[in-house]
Every structure is written in structure tokens, then in C-alpha cells.
């Protein structure tokens, strides 16, 4: 036996030495290979030092000094005409996107060049606004210097104004672009499309498959879900500040100088019979030069300053003219005057995301004669909604070229990455006016069968905890008990000591002794409803709990529970006070024994202002008040107190033992209410005068009661 093993080891060691040599050789070879390849790359890099490859990754140079001149030959080929059937699905190449992360498009800008014709004329005049568009993209988070990984490409040829570029030559220049590829994934900006006499509603340019971000589209030229409708930028608007006069002096103002004659006649008709419409037009100037800062009333000739006069109107009129969009729309928005838009088939700026119904009135052209009737029928509530929304929308989406460009990019980004999309409310509902969105908005009575999970926060009161557990399990709808063991020094009692019950029970040991632990959305809570309960609340009967759960089912987005409190304003100290006397009102339901949806635990942990959560954990108090504030602030609904019960703890317990009887504790809680109200910026809590009782409470009609055992106090 021994020799055999010896032989074996011998063989083995031999084998090992052989392997050693192999390894050695391999590593030496590897080292050599690495060194050689390093030398090669260095050599190659030095050799190809000035190759274009390194230049590509340099950010586009937007200096206006010494631009490269590019000649467009007279017979160079044109790009294909605009593809009228393009959709996002057929003309946009998604495979090019997604290289800048999974929620962000990448944009490349072609180098800025001076394109000239053979006879040395500029084919397009670079404007300040176009320059700013490029500059915004260049400094946005979407920019990439590498055309190979770009999802969108922006030609740096100014096509904003149809009058200032030669559409033939630009079509040729587009074709000559390095990555043109039939316009795929290219973005063309335009503000003034069409020229006299027809004023086409889309830029006259061979854009083939390129996306057009332009203003002045009508519903025929706008390619749904593909093009982006822009506002017609007005540099007058940027000079308008956000101040407002105390009183609006005019109901409707029209300042437009280019209203078509037939509509002007109708408006003059209205203005002559009513004071509600202030109709302004050109001033009969002495000099030949038009003064764009003055407007004159048609009949009286009274002179007004433009754009200041816009602020004095509650409604301002925008009528289509040669083109569908008018730059005056931006002046009106900036002046916080509610626009009345008269332009059939217009595609309004950013209409896919900005809800124009919230900021404007739209009147069909043939209805212009009913202008007054329509404006008078607008209720004061809607006037308020429109008015307060205007400046907010303007500043977010229209205030500058930068804002306009970024909004355009964001809309494209949302199309490519639908998960990055912001919801309607985020685009259109200012939170300072409408508040946050309730995450539980479906009007349902929650199903009974899943039951609820009781979450008990405990430290070391094992005895009362066990009593509570034994009582809880008698509630039919209880699905599970979760004990959150907050004592870091002591381990929970061994499983043999726990009461034997017929419902699942799980103990979770926390890592830190924090009050907020009771609101952690543990995975173990599998029901939508959780009963948060203190370990010493042992007086609730199974009927009371079952009834509480049934009430919660009817109001699943509220806190439904037993102990109630009130907040009152103290005039002496000018602060909020916490009130626990037996009053006729309540505004809070304490989470010492309350049902609520699990989502609120999640909100408490992840969405609540961090300031509040840290305060609660630091001072070891007010977690229940914080929860009431959180829910009331989001839902704008009060909690519901269930059944008359007002005493919860063991009757023989002395008051000195209880935390909440402490006077300091009480003043601290008053301070909490004050502090939380300040953090939220308003007092979210609302007092109510009702509580929920079983339908047959205190009745003896002979019909058996559904919840017979409801305690009195």
C-alpha cells in the first residue's frame, strides 16, 4: 500500500514540474506579446499622429473665427425631396440610438462651415438664433463628438428662415454631408417656412427622411409622431419680464398688424360695438420707417406701447396671417395674457406634450364673429387656471432658444426611450398649483380575501407583545404577523417561547433602533394593507379590527385607524399645537393602531423629505405625525377614525410609564406639527367631524349584528 502511494506521488510531482515549465513558457510568451503589441501601437500612433481619426472625437468647434469654406458645385447632386409618409417607425433608424446609455439619445453636430456657391455667394446666412441652437446642443447632456455613435445628427447649415437660404443649394449641401444617408436620423430646424405667394406650411427643402423641427406646420404637412412643432421665436418676448399689473384693464386685446382683411373687418365690427375688445393696428407714422414699438387704436388713433400693452389684457388675440403661426404668440405668453388662437388646422408648438387647452382658447376661423360670446362664457375658474399656468409653461418650454431646443430634444428622447417619458402631469400641471399625484387613484373597494399584515414594532415588552399576538390572531382577515425587533442589545426570545398560532409569524431584526423601521416596506408584507400597531395596544377586539379593515377596504388610499388626534392653531404663540383631548374633530389617526396601504410605507422610506425622516429618527418621536402629513399632503384627504374607542392600553397601566403622557413629549409633538407644516409649505392636515361606525352600532333591531363586539371608549 505504502509503496503504491509513493509511486503515485512521484508520478504526480513529475507531472507538476512539467506543468511548471509550461506555465513559465506561457507567461514569457504572453509578456513578449504584450511588449511587442505595445511598441506597435505606440509606433502606429506616432506614425498616424495627424490622422482624422483623432480629430473626430474633438467637440465641434463653434468659434466663428476662420470658418472652413466649402464650395457647392453647380452640378452636384441633390438630396431626395421630403418624404411625406415618414413615420418614426419607417424613417428613423433606432439601431443608431442607445449608445449613450439606455435613457439618453446622442446628438452629433456637423462642423460649422461656410458653404458658398461657385460664384462665391453664401448659400445660407448664419443667424444668431441658429447659432444658439447649435450652442445649446453642444453643451447639452445629449451631445456627442463622434458621428459613429450619434443617434441624431444636426447639419450646421442655417435653415431657420426660408428667405435667407437658397433651398436648391442647401439641398445639395445636405447631400454632400458625410453621414447624410438619405437624411436618416437628421434633424432640420426651421422657423419661417414658405414664401409668398403660397406660403407653404413646411420648409421648402429636400430633406428626404430627416426630422423637421419647425414652426408653422398645418395638419397636412406635419408628420404625426415624427416631426416636432416649434414655436415661432420672438426676440421681443425675451425682453418681457414676469411682473403683472394689479388690474387688467382690457378683456381682449388684439395688437397684430397683419390680420387678413376679412377677419379684420369682423373684428372692427366687434370693437365698434363693444368696449371688451381693444383693436390695435399700425400707426399712421409720419416717417416712412415702421415703428414696431407702437400700436394705435383703429378708430381713435390712441397710441399704445408694444409689447407693454399686452400685459393689460386678460385675453389676447392671435390670428393666422400669411403664415399659420405668428411670433406675437410668444409675446402674449410671456405677458401672461391668455392667447385666443384663430388659425384652422394649425399644429401648435410642442402639441404632443404641451396641452394647449390648459393655456389657450382656440376659436375656429369661421367662428371669429362669436369671439365675445365665447370669451364671456369662460368661467372664472377656468380663467384662473389658464392665467396661472401661462408663465409657468412659457418659462419651462418657450422662454429662450435654449429652452425651445432642449424641449425639442427631450421630446425626441421620450420617443426613443419611452420609459424616460415624463407623465402628463409633469409636463402640464405645476405642482405648486395642483399638488402631487395620488399613487392610488383607482376608485375601488379593495378585495377582502388577501387580508392584512400586522406589523408590530417592539423593543423589549415581550409580555405585552405576546398578549397582543394572541389577540390579533383572532381577527379573521389577518394574513400574517410581522414583528419588527428593534432592540439591538437583546435577541428576540427563542421560537419555543412564542405563542403557538395558526397564522404565519415572522420576526425581523433591524440593524439600528429607529422609529422609521416600522414603515419600511418589507418584502414580507405581501398584502396591500398593513396594520401598523404598537406592542402595548391590547384592548382592541377582533370585531373592531375586522371592522377597521373593512372600512379601510372602502377607503384604500387613506389611513384608517383607532387613536385620533387634532391639530389646532394657537393664537398666543402663533404656532400649531398638538391636541389629544376628546374633541369633536380629528385630523390625525395615529399609527399606534392604524390600517394603511403598503405604498405609504414605501413613500415614507423613499419619497418623504429626508429632513423629516432624519428628524424622526433623531428625536425618536413623531413618526405617526409624519405619516399623517405624508398621506394628507399627497392625497389631500383626511384620515378616518374607526369606532368610538379612545383607550387602547391595558387599563391597569399607570400613566407615568407611558411615553406619550410625558409633558415634554407633548410639546415636542406640537413642535413636530409646526416643523412639518413648514417643510411642506402648507398645513396638509384637515380636521373632520366624523368617525366610522358599523351600520348597526348601538342598535337593537333584532337583526344579528355584523360586528357585535365594539367597545365603548
Amino acid at each position: 500500500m505504502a509503496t503504491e502511494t509513493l509511486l503515485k506521488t512521484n508520478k504526480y510531482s513529475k507531472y507538476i514540474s512539467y506543468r511548471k515549465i509550461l506555465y513559465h513558457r506561457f507567461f514569457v510568451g504572453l509578456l513578449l506579446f504584450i511588449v511587442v503589441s505595445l511598441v506597435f501601437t505606440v509606433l502606429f500612433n506616432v506614425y498616424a499622429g495627424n490622422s482624422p481619426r483623432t480629430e473626430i472625437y474633438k467637440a465641434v468647434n463653434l468659434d466663428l473665427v476662420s470658418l472652413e469654406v466649402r464650395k457647392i458645385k453647380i452640378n452636384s447632386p441633390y438630396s431626395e425631396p421630403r418624404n411625406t409618409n415618414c413615420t418614426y417607425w419607417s424613417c428613423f433608424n433606432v439601431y443608431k440610438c442607445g449608445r449613450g446609455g439606455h435613457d439618453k439619445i446622442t446628438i452629433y453636430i456637423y462642423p460649422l462651415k461656410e458653404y458658398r456657391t461657385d460664384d462665391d455667394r453664401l448659400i445660407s446666412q448664419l443667424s444668431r438664433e441658429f447659432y444658439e441652437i447649435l450652442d445649446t446642443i453642444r453643451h447639452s447632456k445629449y451631445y456627442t463628438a463622434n458621428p459613429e455613435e450619434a443617434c441624431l445628427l444636426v447639419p450646421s447649415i442655417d435653415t431657420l428662415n426660408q428667405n435667407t437660404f437658397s433651398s436648391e443649394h442647401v439641398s445639395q449641401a445636405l447631400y454632400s454631408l458625410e453621414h447624410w444617408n438619405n437624411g436618416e436620423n437628421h434633424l432640420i430646424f426651421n422657423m419661417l417656412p414658405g414664401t409668398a405667394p403660397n406660403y407653404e406650411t413646411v420648409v421648402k427643402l429636400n430633406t428626404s427622411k430627416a426630422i423637421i423641427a419647425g414652426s408653422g406646420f398645418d395638419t397636412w404637412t406635419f408628420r404625426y409622431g415624427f416631426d416636432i412643432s416649434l414655436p415661432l421665436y420672438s426676440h421681443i418676448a425675451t425682453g418681457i419680464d414676469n411682473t403683472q399689473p394689479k388690474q387688467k384693464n382690457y378683456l381682449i386685446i388684439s395688437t397684430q398688424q397683419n390680420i387678413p382683411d376679412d377677419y379684420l373687418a369682423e373684428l372692427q365690427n366687434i370693437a365698434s360695438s363693444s368696449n371688451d375688445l381693444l383693436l390695435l393696428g399700425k400707426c399712421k407714422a409720419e416717417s416712412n420707417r415702421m415703428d414696431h414699438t407702437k400700436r394705435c387704436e383703429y378708430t381713435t388713433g390712441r397710441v399704445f406701447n408694444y409689447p407693454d400693452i399686452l400685459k393689460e389684457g386678460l385675453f389676447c388675440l392671435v390670428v393666422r396671417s400669411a403664415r399659420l403661426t405668428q411670433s406675437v404668440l410668444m409675446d402674449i405668453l410671456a405677458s401672461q395674457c391668455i392667447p385666443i388662437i384663430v388659425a384652422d388646422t394649425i399644429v401648435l408648438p410642442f402639441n404632443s406634450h404641451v396641452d394647449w387647452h390648459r393655456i389657450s382658447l382656440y376659436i375656429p376661423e369661421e367662428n371669429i364673429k362669436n369671439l365675445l360670446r365665447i370669451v364671456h362664457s369662460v368661467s372664472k375658474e377656468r380663467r384662473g387656471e389658464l392665467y396661472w399656468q401661462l408663465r409657468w409653461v412659457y418659462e419651462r418650454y418657450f422662454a429662450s432658444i435654449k429652452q425651445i431646443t432642449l424641449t425639442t430634444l427631450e421630446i425626441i428622447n421620450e420617443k426613443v426611450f419611452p420609459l424616460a417619458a415624463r407623465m402628463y402631469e409633469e409636463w402640464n400641471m405645476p405642482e405648486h398649483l395642483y399638488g402631487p399625484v395620488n399613487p392610488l387613484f383607482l376608485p375601488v373597494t379593495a378585495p377582502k380575501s388577501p387580508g392584512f399584515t400586522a406589523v408590530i414594532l417592539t423593543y423589549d415588552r415581550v409580555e405585552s407583545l405576546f398578549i397582543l399576538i394572541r389577540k390579533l390572531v383572532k381577527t379573521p382577515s389577518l394574513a400574517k404577523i410581522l414583528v419588527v425587533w428593534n432592540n439591538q442589545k437583546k435577541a428576540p426570545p427563542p421560537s419555543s417561547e412564542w405563542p403557538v398560532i395558526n397564522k404565519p409569524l415572522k420576526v425581523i431584526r433591524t440593524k439600528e433602533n429607529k422609529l422609521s423601521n416600522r414603515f419600511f416596506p418589507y418584502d414580507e408584507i405581501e398584502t396591500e394593507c398593513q396594520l401598523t400597531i404598537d406592542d402595548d395596544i391590547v384592548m382592541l377586539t377582533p370585531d373592531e379590527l375586522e371592522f377597521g379593515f373593512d372600512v379601510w377596504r372602502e377607503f384604500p388610499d387613506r389611513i384608517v385607524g383607532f387613536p385620533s388626534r387634532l391639530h389646532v392653531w394657537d393664537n398666543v404663540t402663533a404656532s400649531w399645537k398638538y391636541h389629544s383631548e376628546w374633541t369633536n374633530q380629528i385630523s390625525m389617526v395615529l399609527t399606534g393602531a392604524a390600517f394603511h396601504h403598503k405604498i405609504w410605507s414605501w413613500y415614507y422610506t423613499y419619497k418623504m423629505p429626508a429632513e423629516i425622516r432624519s428628524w424622526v429618527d433623531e428625536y425618536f418621536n413623531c413618526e405617526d405625525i409624519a405619516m399623517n402629513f405624508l398621506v394628507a399632503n399627497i392625497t389631500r384627504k383626511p384620515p378616518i377614525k374607526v369606532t368610538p374607542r379612545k383607550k387602547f392600553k391595558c387599563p391597569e397601566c399607570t400613566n407615568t410609564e407611558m411615553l406619550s403622557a410625558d409633558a415634554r413629549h407633548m410639546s415636542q409633538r406640537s413642535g413636530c406639527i409646526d416643523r412639518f407644516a413648514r417643510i411642506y409649505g402648507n398645513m396638509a392636515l384637515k380636521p373632520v367631524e366624523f368617525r366610522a361606525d358599523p351600520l348597526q352600532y348601538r342598535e337593537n333591531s333584532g337583526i344579528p349584528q355584523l360586528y357585535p363586539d365594539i367597545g365603548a371608549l
Partner: protein
Amino acid sequence: MQAKKRYILLLFSCSLLIVYIYSNGFLLKSKFVQNSRREQLPTFATLDELYEAPSRQKRSPQSIVKSCRMETCFDFSKCGDDPKVYVYPTDGPVSATYRKVLSVIRESKYATRDPNEACLFLPAVDTLDADPLSSEHIPDVAQRLSRLPHWKNGRNHLVFNLYAGTWPDYAENALGFDSGEAILARASASETIFRDGFDISLPLFHKEHPERGGAAPAATANPFPAPKKHLLAFKGKRYVHGIGSETRNSLWHLHDGNNLILVTTCRHGKSWKDLRDERCDEDNREYDKFDYEQLLSNSTFCLVARGRRLGSYRFLEALAAGCVPVLLSNGWRLPFDERIDWRRAVIWADERLLLQVPELVRSVPPERILALRQQTQLLWEQYFSSIEKIVFTTVELLFERILAHRSSRQRDALIWNASPGALGTLATYGDSRAHFPVTAIAPVAPPAPSPPPVPLPVPSVPSTAPPPTLGESFTALLYVQATSPALHKLLANIASSEFCEKVVLVWDSERAAPTLKSLPRMAGDDRDPLPVVVIDATTHYPGEGVSARWQPLWAIPTAAVFSLDGDAPLLAEELDFAFQVWQHFPERIVGYPARSHYWDEAKGAWGYSSKWGGAYSMVLPGAALVHRAALALYGAAAPALRLAVRRARNCEDILLNCLVAHYTRRPPLKLAQRRRYKPAHHRHRSSWTDPEHFVQRQSCLNTFAAAWGYMPLMRSILRLDPILFKDPVSTLRKKYRKMELLTS
């Protein structure tokens, strides 16, 4: 040595600094130069260009033919303030589905029998299925359409189509007829063929889709995070060849048998074996392992992949099951996307990026899933669960366009996309959400600066006053058939109520109406007398019967309406407490007399009971608060329902309960303990003790349930009491003391 080193270091750093400053200055200079150059750039357009006026007086008529828009192809002049639909009489073959569509409209409030007052025409020619290979296909559609007396190239006509095109290419424009200027309500429309703002996109629904009622939402629970067995599911056939087959053919790549269940089969049609490919057998094996219904309810996301056409039945099936649709159908215009914001309820995937779908669905955060799932249920319940709802939504969309054209108003986007939805909100009632009983009361925006006083009279027709918003007071709306001591007592109690702003007394009796202008206050109450308006129902609303009690909305200046029977023995305290509660539940009926309904197994019908046990489902508006908008809805209820009330001269209170429950899907709220809301000793023969009366109400309940196709009432087990109600504490502590003393 050390010092030298230091000096060198100092010198070195100094020189570095100098170089840095110098280069920086240079940079700054160049930046300055660049900035000034940027300033020198011209603006893109001069003001003269921006203010360009048309050269000709009228805009040039469009020379090229463009597709239809409402402005060009619809005659708005035919539509008044209350637009109507005319349905042609049926002659010729009509499929079962289209018959349901027709009957739903014919029996609706939109219908008219007079083509001259109609704004919209619905041909009784079945255009649903344009596929000649289908058994439901009706031939000669084109001819029969053009023979319609009011056709006029389809102007103001509405044409429904579910299936366009046929094998092999399923061309979308192959309808078998020229729709001309008719509005097409079509399923499976693509972005390219869809006339935006003119056509209406429909969902594809089964032949078995219920005419009315429809399945209630399946997913009423909102667990968080959603504990579903599967993440993504799809079970369906694949076509192996031809249009639309690519996407489904490659689904098997994603199937992992656990989290992602994507199973397909080649078995369909008679000749599937001839077209089979090498994967068919394996696919079929996997396919048979899973049950479709189970997959729907056990999975968070459901793939809705295009079939031959862009739309598929799967979309509605997923919606109904609360399974969030993940769309793989490039270019599809989703149903009613004109107003429904689908971003809230579906995930758009891209057929071209099929393999990214698993990652896409994995990266949806749980709170978004919760919102998506709720929205699927909301939309399903509001717009899709029955043919009636789909057709009504189509009509409402069209009528809203007409309303927008006439009076420049439309429903808010949030009304369409939140509860109770567009069908539960009258388009003509109010123009702000503040006018409706929204569950979450958004703080009303502060008012705009007040408009200037109008010195000259407005020349146009007087507009109707906008409806009131939730305020601090209510209007008592009394329905009185005879004077009695009880009435006088009630009026006195109303006068001492804290929150009553006005009394509207609807007098429905042969006798002359009393003249009453105001109610005096109690002694010691220094408020002005309470204004009263008496409305004689027999002259104002002849033939309306009991429904007349909620007709005079014009006289009601508050959103809160306390609907009272003339002899209801309500205390002032009870009135005020009810109002305090109602302010927190403006969308519900909040009041005192509760009733209950139950299913009577023996009779196989619904029963009506005033002897409730532990639950109730109705609170009678003989003493209850209702939102004014709900009463407006009552005025616009379906003709069949109103007819039932008129015939019975009864049940208007049951109908109101059913209506509110139908639209809000919430039960009413009963207050306090008292049961008896009629004076105990009634001199007249009380209808409440009359067994006949009871039978009638029972039959009403069954009529209503039949008209809706389901029983809309919902039950509740709780009542709301004042906080210290009947508590063994001193009465002095209590606010509502007299309520304590009431015995049932």
C-alpha cells in the same frame, strides 16, 4: 541646499502661474472676441418678415386634394347645442356585432328619429368586416352606401370598420368602398393612413364582447410591488409567413419558461402543416403547457404583438385582466388616442428592438407598474368593457369636436384619463375641473385679475352662467306634494341651519303653489332671511313626473344640493353635519335614509329592502346631499331609464343612486343612526306603507339593472357618526347634542 531648492521651486511655480495667467487672458480675449462676433450675427428674421401679411385678401384655395379634416369635410352648421345621431333604418344583412352597435345608439340619448335635426348619420350598412374571405363579410357595401338618401359623399356620416384588407397583404385602405368624406371609426389604423383629428381609432373586439354592462375590472387589488408569477407573457399563434409574421416568429428567443413566457403555435387554419417550419413542433409543445387566462392574470406585463393587422384582440384582453400591455405594433394608432393618454397605461416597445423587450420591462420601476396597472383598469371600465361604451366613446369624441368648434371648450385631459371619465361627465357642464366632484380636490388656482366692468351692453346672446364650484354652503332642494306641519317644521330647521344658502321648493301638486319669498330666521339669529324660490313643477315641467324634482338646476347657486322630501323630519344639526361630511366626499351621495338591494334566488331577480342588516347600498335623496353635476347627469340619463321612472311615477331616487354608483363605482354614505325619515303619524295615506309601492320599486331596480347590463349598486358596511356620538361623556363636550337624543 534646502534654500536653493526652495527658490527653484518658487521660481518654477511663479513662472507656471505667469504662463497660466497669460494663456488664460488669451483665452478670455478670444472668448470675448467670439462673443462679440456672436452678437454681430443677424437675427434669423426681421420684424417685417415676421409680420408679413398675405398678399391677397383671401387665402388661396388649396389646389391639390388633401385628405379630410373636420374643417374641410364636416358640416358643423347641422349641429346645434345638442347634437344628435340619426341611424338609418336597417334593410339588408347586418352582422350580429353591427346589430349591437346600431341598437346601442338607437336606444341612447344621442339618437333622433328625424334626419333633418341630425348632425351625424350612421348607415345601417354593415361595414365592420371588409375582408371578403370572412364569413361576416357583407357584399355590395359600396353600392348600398351611395344609395343612402343623405349620403352626399359621406359628409357627416360615421362609418365603423374593424377589419380592412384581406389575405395576403391586408392593405389598410382596402375597405371595399369609398368612404369619401365620411368619418372612419376603424380598428388597427396605422399612423400613415389615419386622418389625424378626423378619423377615430377603435379597439378590436370579439364577437362575444357584451353589448352592455361588461366584465368588471379583474384586478381590484393594488399590491405593491406587484407579486406576479411571470414578468411578461404572450400566448398566441404565429403565421410563419407573410405580413406581420416576423415579430411573432422571433418571440421564442425571449421565452425562458419562468419569468418570460412567450409561447406561440403554428396551428391555425386548415393547412398549417404545409407551411410549418422547423420550430413548429417545439413551439407547439411549449404552447400547450400554459393556459391563456392564467397567464393574463399571473403576469405583470402582457405582450401585445401585431397580427396580420396592427391591432389585436389581445389588447383589450390584457387591459381587462390588469396586465400592462407591452406594444409590439409599430405605427399603430391606439384606440381613442385623440383623448386617451396611453402613456399612462401601456409600454411602447419597438418591433425592431424585439430582443430588448425583456430589459425594457425589467427596468420599469414598481411605482410606475402600480400606476400603469390601475390605469388599465380605469380605462377598461370606463371606455372598453362593452360595445355600448366603445360606441358611446366614439360618439362623445365626435360631439366634443363639435362642441370645441361651436363654443371653444372641451373636457380637460384629466377628465378623460381619470375617474369617472368622459362618459360620466357631461361635456357641456362646466369648463373647469373645479366644477365637478373630483375625488382629490385640487386647490383651485387663484383667480386672474378681474375683468374690467362692461360699460356697454354685450351685443351677443346671453350665455348660461357657469356652474358653481365646491363652496361653504348648500342649497336645499325640496320636493313638496302637499303642505303639512312637517314641511313647516323642516323649513324652520333649514332656516336655522348654518350652511344653507338658498331654498328651492319644487311644488308638484294640483293645488296652487304657495307664495314664499324668504324664510325668517330664529329669534336671536341676526342673519338675513333665507331666500326661497318656489317652482311649480306642473307648469314648468309638465309630464316630467317625479323627475321634475331635480330639473331646476338653474335655480341652484351651489355645488352642494341637499335634496329633501317635503316632510323629512330633519334637524338643523343633521343638515349641518351632513354637509360637513359631504364636503369630504363630494362625488358620493351622503345622507340619512339607507336602503339595500339583494339578489332574490327564488325569484331570480333583484330585491329591494328597507330593512337592512349589516350593509346598505342606497341612500335615498329624500334626505341626502348630492353634487349638482350628478343631478345634471340624471337629466341626461338614457331615455329608457327616464321612461321607467315616468311610467312608475316612482323610483327617481333609486335611479339617482344607480347612476352615481355606475359612474363613480363607489357606494353612498349613510350618516348617523336614525332609521325613520318619515313622520310617524302621517295624515295622508303614506306610500311608504303601501306594499304596491314596494313591488314597483323592486321592478324599477330590475329594469335599471337590465338597461345597464349589470347591477351598478355597491354595498357599504359603515356609517359615519359625529366623533363623540353616543359616547359616555358629558353632553356639554359634544357639538351635535340634539342628534344624540333621537331615537330610531
